[in-house]
């Protein structure tokens, strides 16, 4: 049965469903690493750039990178308290997005911050990674708490 929302103009419901089988490809190790409670990053042997999230190829010079294990402690580079989100995350609201700086990593890493009141969050604050036991095999398997 088709849902009809209006006749003038004629407006109907058209549900659509897709079952993706998604591959993490050459960065699979990062996601497998979350189950080991590790943050795997990449280092470029040519120009020295370090990447977290990791890359097979250096985004700066194009050379093939090597894997290394990053620290799980860092500092808040910036953050925001979200009161609205895409449909998939409405049930999580409100939540805090945070970009984390790590020692020896050129990039900053997006994650969620939990266990701290919004008004107590400050840029520069120390945080550490926590890993979910029951992994969902996605980037949300790691999150951060005050260190």
């Amino acid at each position, binding site marked *: 049965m088709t849902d009809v929302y*209006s006749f003038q*103009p004629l*407006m109907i419901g*058209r549900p*659509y469903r897709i079952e993706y089988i998604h591959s*993490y490809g050459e*960065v699979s190790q990062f996601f497998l690493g979350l189950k080991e409670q590790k943050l795997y990053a990449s280092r470029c042997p040519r120009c020295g750039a370090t*990447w977290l*999230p990791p890359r097979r190829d250096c*985004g*700066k010079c194009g050379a093939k990178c090597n894997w290394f294990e990053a620290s799980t402690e860092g500092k808040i*580079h*910036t*953050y*925001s*308290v*979200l*009161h*609205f*989100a*895409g*449909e*998939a*995350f*409405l049930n*999580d609201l409100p*939540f805090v*997005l*945070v*970009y984390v700086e790590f020692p020896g990593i*050129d*990039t*900053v*890493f*997006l*994650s*969620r911050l939990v266990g701290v009141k*919004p008004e107590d969050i400050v*840029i520069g604050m120390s945080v550490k990674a926590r890993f979910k036991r029951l992994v969902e095999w*996605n*980037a*949300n398997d790691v*999150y951060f708490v005050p260190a």
Partner: protein
Amino acid sequence: MRRVCVISGGITKFAKANPELTQEAMCKDAFDRALADAGLELKDIDSSICTYFSDHFNGQLLFDSLTQDYLGLCPKPSMRIEGGGATGGLGIRAGYMNVASGLSDVCLVYGFEKMSEVNTAKGNEFIALASDTDFDFPVGGFYSGYYATMAQRHMHEFGTTAEQFARIAVKNYDNAFYNPYAQKHERLTVQDVLNAPMIATPITRPMVCVMSDGAACVILASEEKAKQITRRLVYITGLGCGTDTMRLGDRPRGDVILLPGEEPEKYAYLKGRWPGVASFRGGREAARQAYLQAGITDPLHQIDFAEVHDAYASSELQTYEDMDFCKYGDGGKFVEAGLPYLDGELPVNPSGGLIACGHPVGATGIMQGVFALWQLQETIQDHMKSDRLQVKDARRGLIHSHAGTGTYITVHILERGW
């Protein structure tokens, strides 16, 4: 290289939902207005460029073929251009390339988006899927959140305030009040904006552009053809396009890209941390290319108005700095000094921008072109039934189109040639 002119434009009234019309009919309405304005007929158009954002919004793939067909343009050449929020600006760039390369003499650049066939949360989710779906989307990343973190960092580094963002929103609403094509016709105070529901700290609802249904188009022509069509010539005298990493967190921290005439010392205070997450490298690079081509070394005084991509009030502020309307870090002071207001030194978003006009993604960057053209042709009165938004003696305008967190940014300089 052939010089390229913008000869006319057309636009539909942007609306939260326009179920009365299909996308192709909205495009036709915008196109008919542009044809009429230039006194052209269908046969005078020899190619087109179509822009829309994502197949996800309507579940109709290859929508560009449906619109090309509907506009009666088959079998003429066309192609679809996409680049997130910068889709429209990239479309104008492609239209320029099309004409300047000699492949076309008169090219229609048209764009549309119908965002009302899904609910707002789903629409936001689609847009969030235009960020990295392996690393950023799954943690709950979505665009208001990304821009909010950028704004927080800008506040941290430069002392920028939420009130300064609010002033920008108020300015854009005030302008749009006189723009009949705008989705929103409201008057707000700074306090209204600050007290409105929080979307993502420090961004409140009126600081964010809204989803919209709409279409817009411009007709571009070679200089030779343009001269046969209109006396009110408007040239594209500078083009720029910059890009940046998909993940905001991967942006480099280094030295500022210098614009024509700038010296490195100007930015010594940034100590090599530019752009990081506080500024848009792609916007700076786009400005550099466009200013170089157009011979601009003092944008604040050499540009008469700008239509910039204010998906967020905060990103308009950041854009003042990328465009060198003021120095990095001075965006807040720039707005407090009244410079981007309609009666200021450099009116920014005299149309009301995305915040008040709406952001039907594929149409937005082209909408800017339409409004800029009318400013330079001095036809705001004719098109808006009021000259309230007409920038006096507007001889050179800048339009700026921008995709998610600055992944694509285009800048075009349009100049009066009459």
